[in-house]
């Protein structure tokens, strides 16, 4: 039953005058995606490896534009940082053949996956309209290129006019590794959403970004808590609101 008829049935059933909602053509969950390893620029922003990226850190999966673009930010001004070559983008140390892995927020019908370096398409994978499986990875031969390389990967969606763009900075073939630091990046606290966040109570020993073992104790908001489950603390898992991790003593 299509959406309009369904709405009509509900409205009539309730004795209301039917109100039609404009139904958008998408019949499946809207899909987004980006390359997670080696880290794309948006992934490096989202993990805090690069500072001051702007809104991309909240939606690395949304670098979407019409097919056929060749920019790292799909022409989107709010993500212009991705096309900013003056930034210190961490370069992944790789060999002559690289396996790229994607995060997808939904498995969406795909036409092709394309890989470009310097305007030359070095690899293409044709899914012919199929839906990706549980994970997507492609092994790409860099064609003998060495040194610093910027790769552009494109996920072409089959049944829309759009594609998703991921630039990945590579250092090919050793000699002066420029890997991102191996220590975990500090947990970044996102700025408030439309609802102002609760101001954390003053004082207490609990802090985000710390590794807590079972049995360890902290104070938070004037109360003492015991850790029930080992974890690295994050904003949003405060003791007062996370009884699954913290038992109030």
């Amino acid at each position, binding site marked *: *039953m299509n959406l309009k008829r369904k709405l009509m049935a509900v*409205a009539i059933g309730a004795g209301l005058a039917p109100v039609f909602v404009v139904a958008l053509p998408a019949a499946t969950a809207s899909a987004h995606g980006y390359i997670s390893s080696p880290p794309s620029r948006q992934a490096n922003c989202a993990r805090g490896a690069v500072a001051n990226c702007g809104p991309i850190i*909240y939606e690395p999966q949304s670098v979407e534009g019409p097919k056929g673009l060749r920019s790292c930010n799909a022409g989107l001004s709010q993500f212009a940082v991705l096309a900013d070559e003056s930034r210190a983008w961490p370069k992944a140390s790789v060999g002559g053949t690289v396996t790229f892995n994607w995060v*997808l*927020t939904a498995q969406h019908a795909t036409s092709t996956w394309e890989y470009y370096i310097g305007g030359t398409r070095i690899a293409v994978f044709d899914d012919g309209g199929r839906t990706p499986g*549980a994970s997507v990875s492609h092994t790409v031969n860099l064609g003998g290129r060495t040194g610093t390389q910027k790769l552009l990967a494109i996920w072409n969606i089959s049944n829309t006019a759009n594609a998703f763009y991921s630039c990945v900075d590579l250092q090919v073939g050793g000699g002066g590794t420029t890997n991102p630091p191996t220590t975990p990046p500090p947990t970044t606290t996102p700025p408030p959403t439309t609802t102002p966040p609760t101001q954390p109570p003053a004082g207490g020993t609990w802090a985000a970004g710390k590794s807590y073992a079972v049995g360890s104790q902290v104070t938070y908001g004037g109360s003492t808590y015991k850790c029930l489950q080992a974890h690295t603390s994050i*904003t949003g898992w405060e003791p007062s609101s996370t009884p699954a991790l913290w038992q109030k003593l």
Partner: protein
Amino acid sequence: MKRALLVLTAGLLLLAGCGTDPAPAPATGAPLTPAAASTSAEFNSADVMFLQMMIPHLGQGAEIARLAKDRTAREEVKVLAAAIEVTQVFEADTMSDLLRDWKQPATMDANPDAHAHHGGLPLTSPDTIAMLAAVTDNFETKFLNLLTGHQHNAVEMAKAETAGGANPQVKEMANRIVQSRTAEISQMLAFLGK
């Protein structure tokens, strides 16, 4: 008859919650105090739909996280997965309790067409989870990628709630979901990048 009424109620809530004018912008500047977060406070259709959508989504996240328990993965990945599992199970229980208090249906309309106008149901396909369970090589990478994608969807749903919901407790939960999942994604991307 009762079931029909329940379905009708769910349908009406769906109708009311999607495609209407956006809810008035929430008051800015005033921090939420614990006293304001009351389960008997008002709620709207966006609150109900958020809870109905999140409960199965949380279950799926816990199911995905559980897969890491017996598979080859770094210790830090397993620790994060176990913490995600227990926290999400608790969140789902809290949400179920709320819907019961409000006398609202526990489940949403599962017909994908009913959600077509806001991009469809943001659930991960059960087939995809089953596929992940069956992988024999490089489990950790695939696990982290699937769970990261799943958590991105949770953030999107939670942001819709903070923008359109009315109930202070649920909006606070949604805000914590935005914060915690964003931090989890950041951690998982760091694991993937190493």
